[in-house]
Each structure stands twice: as C-alpha cells, then as structure tokens.
C-alpha cells in the first residue's frame, strides 16, 4: 500500500493536490475570492472608459447631477459629430496620421531593422560595446536633452514642423533596435552563411532573407510606433506652435482648456468626453485585432531587458 502511494506521488503529486484542494472548503473559498478580486479589478480598470463613453452622451443637465447618471436617457448621440465638428479635429486627424504617425512608423521600422541587423547578424570589433551604449541611451531622460534639442531645432528652422518628431525616427530608435536585434539573433546563421557563399551582399541578405522571416517582429514595431505617435503629447506641444499643425492629442488638450478656463461653456464636458472617445476608438480596434502581437512584443523586450 505504502509503496503504491509513493510511486503515485512522484508522477501525479500536482494532480492529486489539485483534486484534494477542490474538495476542501478552503479550496472553494480561495476560488471565489480569486474571481471576486479579478472582477473588482476588471471593473476598476474599465469603469473610467465606461464613464467616458456614457458621459459623452449626456447633455448639460445630466452632467452635473447627484447621484451620477450612469446611463443617460435620452442619449445624445449627436454629441459625437457635433463635438468633432466644434474644432478643427478633421485637420488634426490628418496631421496625426499623414504628417506624424505614418512617416514615423515607416522610418522607425526601416531604420531600426537596418541598425538591428548590423548589431545582430554581423560580427565586427566594438559591436557589443556600441550596442550596450545604444541600450544605455534609453535611460537618458528626455528632459535632459529637451532644451538643447529645442535650440538646435530652432537654429535648423524645424520648429513649427513635424521634422523634429519624424526625422529622429528615420535614424533608429533604441527600444526597437533592441527588440529587433533580439529577434534577429534567433534566425539561424546557416541561412546567412549559405547566402554569403552564394555571393549575396549583406544588404541583399538582409532584404531577401532576414527581413521576410522577421515580419511578425517588424509588425510589432510598426504597431507600437504608430500607437506612440498617435498618443504623443509632449513632443508636439514643444515643437508645434501653429494650431493648424496640431495632432489630435493637442486638439483634445485645447478642448479641455475651453472647459476649465472659460467655465460655463455649453456641453463642454460631454464634448470633451466625446472627442476623447473618438480618439481612443482606433486604438481599441487596432488592439482588438492585434492583441497578441502587442503583448508578445512588449513581453519579449521586457523579459530580455
């Protein structure tokens, strides 16, 4: 009897422990508490969004109520187009997508891939030292270089344009260089060696062999960069003075000012919430379709860091 139980315990100890746990009352309670905590957390994390969307549908009389109205009735769906039309948001959207996000994404993906290739697929003296330097620059706070960068850009005449935001993207971004380098190292060297024997140039190897194999990683880079450009506030607020050049982030912030500084503006809060919702929507949709890519990209960089 004892011998039988001993051999059982080695192979299925976890299974047996689990079965025991399910039978004991403490196991039951633990499960309930676990799901309770999860649900409470889930509610806390989504409540602000729910509040944002439902507040967008209110009119002024429903905003300032005690207790708060969670589902406005009547729901003013026209707040969405009205809020969007109240300022130049279409222009801001065009600015964000075509002058900032798309060029930055293109530049960052391309340049980070090229630089990462140099760090990952080629062996040359000083390579690892330079790579450590590259990674170390991620820790330099933007605030430190912010002022002289501004002065430099002013001297170049780049203030009031998107160049300060887009040009650096074309020169590689350490975060993405790091991510892609880790990924490139997982591609077998034999593929490159075979191509080299066949006389292919390094650039050819990168373009025709390594990059096609790295499409998932490149997609993550493109996704993350686009999202960061979409969300960015500090860069644009420093470099863009003309209202017509603003991206949507600045537009939303400006709308806030009309709410808080001018005080009693009609439908200020609902409009602010409506615009915020519209600005968040593309991210929700993009995230819904590319969840795995997002999360894997961030996990990989975070783990190896």
């Amino acid at each position: 009897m004892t011998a039988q139980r001993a051999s059982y315990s080695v192979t299925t100890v976890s299974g047996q422990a689990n079965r025991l746990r399910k039978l004991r009352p403490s196991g039951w309670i633990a499960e309930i508490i676990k799901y309770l905590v999860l649900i409470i957390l889930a509610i806390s994390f989504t409540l602000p969004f729910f509040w944002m969307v439902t507040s967008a549908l209110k009119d002024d009389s429903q905003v300032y109520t005690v207790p708060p109205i969670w589902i406005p009735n009547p729901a003013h769906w026209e707040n969405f187009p009205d809020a969007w039309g109240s300022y130049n948001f279409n222009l801001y959207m065009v600015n964000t997508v075509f002058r900032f996000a798309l060029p930055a994404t293109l530049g960052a993906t391309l340049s980070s891939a090229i630089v990462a290739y140099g760090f990952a697929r080629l062996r040359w003296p000083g390579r690892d030292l330079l790579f450590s330097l590259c990674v170390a620059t991620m820790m330099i706070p933007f605030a430190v270089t912010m002022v002289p960068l501004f002065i430099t850009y002013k001297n170049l005449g780049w203030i009031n344009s998107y160049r300060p935001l887009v040009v650096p993207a074309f020169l590689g971004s350490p975060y993405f260089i790091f991510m892609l380098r880790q990924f490139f190292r997982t591609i077998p060297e034999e593929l490159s060696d075979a191509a080299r024997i066949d006389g292919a140039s390094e650039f050819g190897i990168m373009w025709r062999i390594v990059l096609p194999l790295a499409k998932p990683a490149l997609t993550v880079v493109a996704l993350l960069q686009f999202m960061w450009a979409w969300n960015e506030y500090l860069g644009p607020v420093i470099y863009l003075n003309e209202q017509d050049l603003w991206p949507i982030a600045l537009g939303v912030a400006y709308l806030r000012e009309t709410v808080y500084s001018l005080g009693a503006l009609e439908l200020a809060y609902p409009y602010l919430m409506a615009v915020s919702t519209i600005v968040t929507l593309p991210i929700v949709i993009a995230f819904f379709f590319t969840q795995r890519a997002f999360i894997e990209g961030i996990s990989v960089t975070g783990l190896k860091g």
Partner: protein
Amino acid sequence: MSVSAAGRRGRLRARATRRYLFWGLLFVSPWLISFLVFTVYPLLSSIYYSFHRFDLMRPPVFLGVENYVRMFTRDPRFGKSVYNTVYYVGLSAPLGVISAFLMANLLNTRIAGRPFFRALFFFPSIVPVVVTAMVWRYLLNVQYGAINSTLQGLGLPVIPFLSNPQLAKPSLILIHMWVQGNQVVIYLASLQDVPRSLYEAATVDGANAWQKFWNVTVPLCTPVILFNLIMSFIGGVQSFVLPWLLTDGGPNQATEFLAVHLYRNAFEWLHMGYASALAWVMFIAIVVLTVVLFKTSARWVYYGSGE
C-alpha cells in the same frame, strides 16, 4: 604548415575583420548619426547652456555657476518640486511594481478567460495620456465626478481628490497604478518562464502556496522586477504630462514635479540656461539613483542559470 601560409591566413583574417567593421558600421550608421547629433551634442551643449543665461532672443550670457547656486538657494519652487518628485516617485514606482506583479500572479493562476482579463488590465496603458488625463479629471471632480457625486448621493462627505493639496499626489499615484498594464504583461511572461519542475519539487518538499510564492516565484522574477523598478523610477522622475494636464502643477504647487518646473522655466519663462541646469541636476540624480539600485540589487536579485 609553413610560416608563410600562417602569415597569409593572419593577413586574410585582418582584412576580413576590416571588411566586417566597414559593413557593421555602415548598417549601424543611422543610429550612430542619431546618437551623435541628437544625444551627445545636446548633452554637451546643455552643459554649456547651464552656465549661461539664454532666452532664445538675445545671445547667451555667461553666468558661471550662478544658475546652480540660484537653484539651491533662491528658488523655492525647486525645493518644492524636488520634494514632490521624491514623494511621487518614491511611492508610485514601488507601488506600481508590486501591484502589477501581484496582478500578474493573479492572472497566472488557473482562471477562465485569462486573455480577456489580461487585455482589460493592459488596455489603459496604451490609451493616449491626454485621454487618461481628461477622463480621470472628470471622474475625480469634487462636485460632479462619478465618485464624489455617488458619495454625495449617499450622504457621505466628498473627497477633493484633485483640489486638496494633500490628496493631489496620492491621486496621481492611483492613476499611475491604473496604467501599469504593460508591466503586468511583462511579469506574466516572466512568471510563465519559471520552470514547473521547481514548483513540483517544492510541493514534494511540503511547501504551501505562500512558501512557493516567496521561495520560487519571487526570486526567479527578480531580474525583471529590478529592470521594471529602475525604468519606473526613471520614468517617474520625468513625469510631466499627467500632472500638467490634470492639475497644472497645482493645487498650490502640490503636483509641481521637477519635470513640470523644468518645462515652465524653459518654455513659459524662456529661462533656457536655468532649465539646462535643472535638467543636469535631474540627470545626475537619475544616474545616482540607478547606480544605487543596481549596487543594492545584488542582495535581492537572483540571476538563475538562464542568464
């Protein structure tokens, strides 16, 4: 093996190395340019500007160390901003790391719909900061924010989250913990990297869940925790957008963090030289903090066989 053949091989190897050096540097050149132009040059020139008075309109005026002296003796807002930053970072970084790690552990247990909950926790971290600021400003509003108006409806006193100087920073810390979803994802991945065999060995040794957590899970995740802690500190010291949009450094400068003070000096008052000095003090503080964190990490970080 004749001597000349060995010599020839040596020369070929040297030539191959030079060739690879050329190609390596060529591929890496975009970053090298960026590094020199957008990192090294601004770092050096910000040292230069920190010893001058410069308002962009007139040429810089040499001031010696006056900016630094002024910072520590005649700028009360600097002292306040340092206090605010230390308070905020000292609480938000550890709390953010701990809460994210605990949530990741919760997600790592056997639950139904893990991808769903994971997405829910992760989502706030990819929302535009502007939206976060707007929504939370409305949510925490002292009169008609959801929380306070519910309290009023129940006859309870309101909580002036953002209008009471004592509560402003804790409110920011709370919001910070709300956007730690990306950390949760990273910890979840590292939790799943912990070898199952270690847990089984612990079970055989008679360990309960609590002991397994402290003796297996936590030690093996400490490298990732350290990395995230450092990045949280560095990010926290530079915290600008949220205090700027939520409370504009107020109320009563309660949320005037170092980065906010820097921004004001640089772009509102055009004290570019003084702002450069502030930036360098911030930089040195971050470097010192990072080094201290690294040095003390040897005592609690466990680098397993994988590293």
